């Protein structure tokens, strides 16, 4: 059947994976992909396609701008819709969905006010690190002043970084669990070669993190250990694995990104976050300080000063003081917890400001070793890598003359503790013999040249 050249193919509606088209009065459904549309147009020997009030020539459509042709929502729509669906069990989300007007129920993400409400809900239900990254994605998507190309690049970059952080956090949880178990049970069978990259001197790629995740899950399962969360679907053809592969492919493309790439990245990120549901059932707690009180003839008690990072029911970063007789997990810990269990992610995830006595938290993610001299961390808020070096600070009784001196000493000692913790994790999981050392002092520092 030939189509009149003057009659473009009409896109009637766009669903997540499908396009509804009207061709010569006939309604067709094809996959929401450029290749599928091209095949259809070729078969109909036409060059133009119309969506809403705009007519596009297929010769001008490529992967980069395909998304803008087929969707009114350019940024955040797919991601937020998918995440809201994954959060359907939450009371606030249920209220949101129940209160949607029926005419908007299918396409609520196209209504700015509903999308905004949904974005707030998503931000409230994810652990702080991911919520902060999602907030960035929402902010980039909403920015009306930025040039489109710049916006696209930033958006895709943050889809990558959010996805990578999700995988990192998951691996931190599993590594921490394995470390603790190995300390308790000598007979665990581990494969150090599979764990070594995590303790290497370069940051892992997303694919490597995914591989590590698979290996860690296998190790725990093979040893009959309970996973800290419900086992995710890590099959190669599963949505999560495919999302990681597609994101990594997108990341390695050496082209100028377009809107279609944004859609791809957004959809992949949604797949990944939906595949790791424990990120919306837990929250992060930073233990800033633990004080010890003991009186004669009374059992001692601990004063735990901690902050819950997420804004949930109380909708604020809650600083709490808890007085109890149970010894704390650890000072300066960063806990990943729900109502039943808590996992200490220190030193892989840490609140650097807890180490330097600052009240506001600053979350950093472990990236890799900095040789044997220290560790490299990623500062989530500042979006930069920072190195922390082993100082071998003396923790014996010593005189301090000023408050600044005390602060500096405490900082050095605590940073050393973090590095020593990682050293212990390495020695436990990879086998003994790993040791961080202070960078050799130059001779002039010790008057060696005099």
């Amino acid at each position, binding site marked *: 059947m030939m189509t009149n050249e003057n009659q473009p193919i009409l896109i009637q509606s766009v669903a997540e994976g499908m396009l509804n088209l009207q061709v010569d009065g006939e309604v067709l459904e094809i996959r929401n992909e450029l290749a599928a549309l091209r095949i259809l147009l070729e078969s109909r020997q036409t060059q133009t396609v119309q969506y809403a009030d705009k007519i596009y020539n297929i010769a001008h459509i490529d992967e980069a701008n395909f998304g803008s042709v087929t969707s009114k929502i350019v940024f955040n729509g797919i991601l937020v819709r998918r995440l809201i669906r994954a959060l359907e069990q939450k009371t606030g989300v249920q209220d949101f969905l129940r209160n949607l007007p029926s005419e908007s129920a299918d396409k609520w993400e196209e209504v700015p006010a509903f999308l905004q409400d949904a974005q707030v809900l998503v931000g409230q239900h994810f652990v702080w690190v991911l919520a902060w990254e999602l907030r960035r994605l929402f902010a980039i998507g*909403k920015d009306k002043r930025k040039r489109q190309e710049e916006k696209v690049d930033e958006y895709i970059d943050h889809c990558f970084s959010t996805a990578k952080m999700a995988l990192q956090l998951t691996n931190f949880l599993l590594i921490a669990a394995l470390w603790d178990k190995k300390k308790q049970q000598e007979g665990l069978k581990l494969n150090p070669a599979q764990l070594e990259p995590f303790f290497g001197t370069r940051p892992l790629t997303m694919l490597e993190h995914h591989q590590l995740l698979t290996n860690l899950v296998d190790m725990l399962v093979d040893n009959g250990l309970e996973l800290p969360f419900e086992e995710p679907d890590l099959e190669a053809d599963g949505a999560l694995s495919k999302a990681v592969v597609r994101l990594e492919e997108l990341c390695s493309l050496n082209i100028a990104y377009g809107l279609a790439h944004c859609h791809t990245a957004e959809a992949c990120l949604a797949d990944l976050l939906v595949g790791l549901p424990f990120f919306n059932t837990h929250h992060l707690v930073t233990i800033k300080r633990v004080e010890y009180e003991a009186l004669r003839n009374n059992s001692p008690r601990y004063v735990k000063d901690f902050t819950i990072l997420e804004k949930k029911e109380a909708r604020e970063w809650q600083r709490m003081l808890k007085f109890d007789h149970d010894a704390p997990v650890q000072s300066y810990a960063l806990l990943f917890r729900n109502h039943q269990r808590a996992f200490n992610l220190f030193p892989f995830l840490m609140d650097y400001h807890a180490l330097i006595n600052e009240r506001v938290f600053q979350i950093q993610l472990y990236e890799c070793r900095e040789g044997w001299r220290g560790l490299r961390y990623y500062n989530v808020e500042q979006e930069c890598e920072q190195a922390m070096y082993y100082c071998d600070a003396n923790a014996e009784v010593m005189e301090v003359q000023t408050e600044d001196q005390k602060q500096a000493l405490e900082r050095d000692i605590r940073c050393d503790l973090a590095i020593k913790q990682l050293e212990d994790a390495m020695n436990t999981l990879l086998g003994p013999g790993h040791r961080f050392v202070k960078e050799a002092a130059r001779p002039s520092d010790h008057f060696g040249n005099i």
Partner: protein
Amino acid sequence: MRKRYPFPFLDAYERKDQDFFFGRDEEIEQLYQLTQQSNIVLLYGHSGTGKTSLIRCGLANKFRSYDWQDVYVRRGTHLIRSLDRALCEESDGAFDYEDGGDTIADLPQKLEAVYRATFKPLYLIFDQFEELYVLGSRDEQDAFVRIIQDILRREQPVKVILSIREEYLGHLYEFERAVPELLRKKLRVEPMNLERVKTVLLGVSNQPDSNVQLEAGHEAPIAEGIFEKIRGQDKTLHIPLPYLQVFLDKFYLEVTGDQSRQAEAIFTRPTLAAMGDLGDVLRNFLDEQATAISRAQGLPEAEVWRALSPFVTLEGTKEPLSEAQLTARLSDLPTGASARLLQALVQGRILRFSEASQLYEVAHDALAKQIHAKRSDEEIAILEVQRLVKSQTAMKAEAREYFTEKQLLFMEPYLEKLVLGEAEKDWIAESRVRVHHQKEEAQRRQEAELAATQKRLRLVRGLLALALVAVLVAGYLRVLANGQKAAAESATLVANERLLEALQEKAQRLEGEKAQLIRAQAVYQTAGDSILQRETLQTMTEKDSLIQLNAQNIRDAQARQKQQ
């Protein structure tokens, strides 16, 4: 590539000026880290050190655009209303501004709306915060502190940055008591020294976008020469930024003569040397502009200065005014003259107009200081009167005090030259009536006091007369008593002499009787009559006692005689 003029003159550097903003890297990093460590940060430094540029350009560019939603708030006519208006404007239509006085209705909801509009952490930046203490009332100051306390308790990521002139730090005492973390994270902005001036000029010169370059190979001497010319004879180690900016603009015009500032310029040593000794560049700039404007407007130069004066406080800081306020103050000028003057002053870059607040203000505090220095004693007196009237009438009726007679006398010669509101006029009139009543009351009280005093005087006189009579009587009686006393003493003397004679006779008699007894004793001894001997001895002992007693009486009588 189209080149740009790199100097902002008296304006602050903005986010877009990042390529031309040099010499502040260390302070930008420090300020950035402080904002990461606390939800409230204080930036302070002297006027002309570049505080505003440090935030608007340096800090703003340190953040990624998706992590930085800045809301700049200047006091305008009222800080809380300005903040409220700014939040409403940033709320993406969720709120329309309505004057709420000293409170902000629905503050949490407004903050939430601003956050939802962008999903970026919100930075509330209160620039030139000293205006709250120079121009604001106590109520306004207290209300602002309460609002900041509220904001810091909010759940949204909201941070507060306050920028204040160093000399007003002391005013923050009450604020710090209410918000103890206020001064915990603070940064002092250092003034420009030679090294920084070099960094700025070399940076600008090396920037490909810049249409100003320093003569190749002589960058450092030119930078040093500029620094030397600006500091002049003072030989200070620092120079204020407005002076540098005005100088660089002058230098550019000297080289290119291009008022549109499009032409490319190369700053050379000979051109710099040819500029000669410039004296105070800022004062010269103001004088030149005032002369040019007065010529163009056909007004005496004094009128230009008179128009500028209300824009500066008594302390020499900026005071924003609307066109209507200035027109009212210059009511003697022809219709439309004040509006034309304002336009000319804006074009001359002395004043700046804010679209948001619809207010005009002096382009920089450094200019305000120069304008203040130009004022006559009378102008200063008028401003003092104006401030006095405003400060009294700004208070709530129950707390307001009437002007005293002394204040009214000081104000009287200048009242005609002031444009006062009805409330102010009423308060002055009421004060006059009150002072009049007070004076009448005082006179009445004085007269009553005079009458009472006279009455008291008469009473005192009567009492005095009585006292005199009493004194005379007492004197007479005293004389009389003295006579009687003398007679008594004379009689006593005679009696004493007689007693002495009697005692001496008695002594002789007792001595004679004792001698007789001694003799009788001898006889009884010879006769061997022991009984008589014993009796005689006893009698002699008694005589001795009598003799001694008598001798004592004689001594007493002699002593009395001697005394008399």
